[in-house]
């Protein structure tokens, strides 16, 4: 009897310890964000005190962000860039992925090895020549530089889609060929609707990547009117040094849309990272 009670007590202690550890870890992950949120609602004088709850929440700090930087303009720019690149990636990568997985043509497999090889090339090597390319096209400081390089797909996305197409059963496709469907009809009507999970993964990863990108917009854009939110935040940080409440309010505002994306597409996002190793920066 006492043995039983001891066993129960021990498992209760274990459970409590586990939950305590989990809460600790979750707290570490969230704390910088919560602290930024708290700082964004403080006055300039209160921001130095270590209280978590601001005594009088200063929602005006958020209003000030809108007057110090063209927030909505930059928000729309970022949405435009992320939206165009994501749509382009999904369309062209799935099209090429379908071709690599199912359509035979001479040199296909050699070409695919070339694709895999380009996955190894780090951004460090390509950013300088890409900058010079954009200059030659006359695209520096224009939205084209933000959209066109990613619009027609990437080796990474094509690889991801090709792997997924290969897991789909072929019988529907064979039936469609017998019915006289063209390759385009097979792709558009039959296979694409089946690849939704892979498309979600590619779309979410691309969206987050463009939204969070910094080096490329930093190199490409000088004008405020076409800048991204990240660029706006860094400019603001340079201009309003140590005005923590406003800087934190801006950070929270930039973070919020992505948290929303994360909340909606969490499964696709996390699975995409687990499979591809993308986003470990």
């Amino acid at each position, binding site marked *: 009897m006492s043995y039983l009670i001891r066993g129960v007590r021990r498992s209760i202690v274990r459970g409590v310890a586990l939950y305590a550890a989990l809460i600790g870890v979750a707290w570490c992950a969230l704390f910088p964000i919560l602290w930024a949120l708290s700082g964004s609602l403080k006055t300039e004088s209160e921001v130095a005190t270590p209280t978590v709850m601001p005594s009088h929440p200063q929602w005006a700090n958020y209003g000030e962000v809108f007057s110090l930087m063209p927030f909505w303009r930059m928000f729309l720019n970022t949405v435009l860039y992320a939206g165009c690149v994501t749509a382009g990636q999904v369309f062209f990568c799935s099209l090429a992925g379908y071709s690599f997985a199912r359509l035979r043509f001479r040199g296909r497999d050699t070409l695919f090895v070339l694709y895999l090889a380009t996955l190894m090339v780090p951004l460090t*090597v390509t950013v300088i020549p890409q900058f010079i*390319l954009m200059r030659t096209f006359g695209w520096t400081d224009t939205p084209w530089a933000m959209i066109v390089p990613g619009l027609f797909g990437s080796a990474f996305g094509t690889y991801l889609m090709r792997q997924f197409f290969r897991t789909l059963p072929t019988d529907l496709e064979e039936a469609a060929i017998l019915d006289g469907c063209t390759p385009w009809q097979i792709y558009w009507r039959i296979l694409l609707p089946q690849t939704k999970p892979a498309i979600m993964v590619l779309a979410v990863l691309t969206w987050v990547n463009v939204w969070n990108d910094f080096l490329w917009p930093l190199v490409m854009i000088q004008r405020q009117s076409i800048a991204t939110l990240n660029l706006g935040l860094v400019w603001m940080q340079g201009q309003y040094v140590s005005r923590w409440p406003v800087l934190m309010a801006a*950070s929270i505002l930039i973070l919020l849309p992505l948290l929303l994306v994360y909340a909606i597409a969490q499964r696709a996002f996390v699975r995409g990272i687990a499979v591809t190793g993308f986003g*470990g920066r």
Partner: protein
Amino acid sequence: MTSIDDGVMPTKRRARAGRAFVAPNLAAIAVFMLFPLGFSLYMSFQKWDLFTPAKFVGLANFRHLFTDDPLFATALRNTAVYTIGTLVPAVLISLVVAALLNRKLKGISVFRAVVFVPLAVSSVVTAVMWQYMFNTDDGLLNTMLGWVGIGPVPWLLDPGWAMVSLCMVSVWKSVPFATVVLLAAMQGVPHTLYEAARIDGASATRQFISITVPLIRGALSFVVVITIINAFQAFDQVYVLTGGHGGPETGTYVLGIMLFQHAFTFLDFGYASALAWVMFAILLGLTVLQLRLTRRSSLEL
């Protein structure tokens, strides 16, 4: 047979479609990936500042980098310290966190969702948020250290501490990533192994070391390679956290910052390209070495 009547063989038609479907994608990769790659190699043998014609200088850029530029050695050392200072804590912490999140407990999916949140935060926002906590005079970290009687730490003002701060920020960002990958691998470990071990009387810690870690070795090596690749090229978080020049002094002057300065501040494109290729070579070497090492140790099993 109808297609023969049409004069078009289905296989021919499919081959034509196959080429057409790849074409736009291939064109983009050729223009924005393959051409830049070749052009970058070409530039690394040139002296070029965009405004005067490029001049062929042979290996001079590389020679200068290795023999004449003391800042290269500094950047290399800082990058190595930063890479190790991110990699080791991130891997150790994420092993423990992944093991915790792998438990079948009530509400575990909520904890998972929360722990992965930093993945959605951009490096720029991350760096700005942490700057607020690192503030020397009245930042949260120093206030809390003050409670236990430790004097103010010059987090971002002292070259050595700036590197520590930078590593802390990167660990915060890397742990969720590593945890995602390791957790996925841990979920693939068959339960029967744990049950057998429990019957043999193995403790939870013992099971973790003798079953979990060896069986997720592949994922572990994947995490190590990706973390090294990212840390080695770090730019965003360094630029935003310590003001873009790798300061204070040369405390956070890493290779990514050096590359950016030579290319986009000094407009010395030849030299910067040479540096980029040296970085690429080191990265390839490290990746191959790491894969070799894991393969050997898994053979020993």
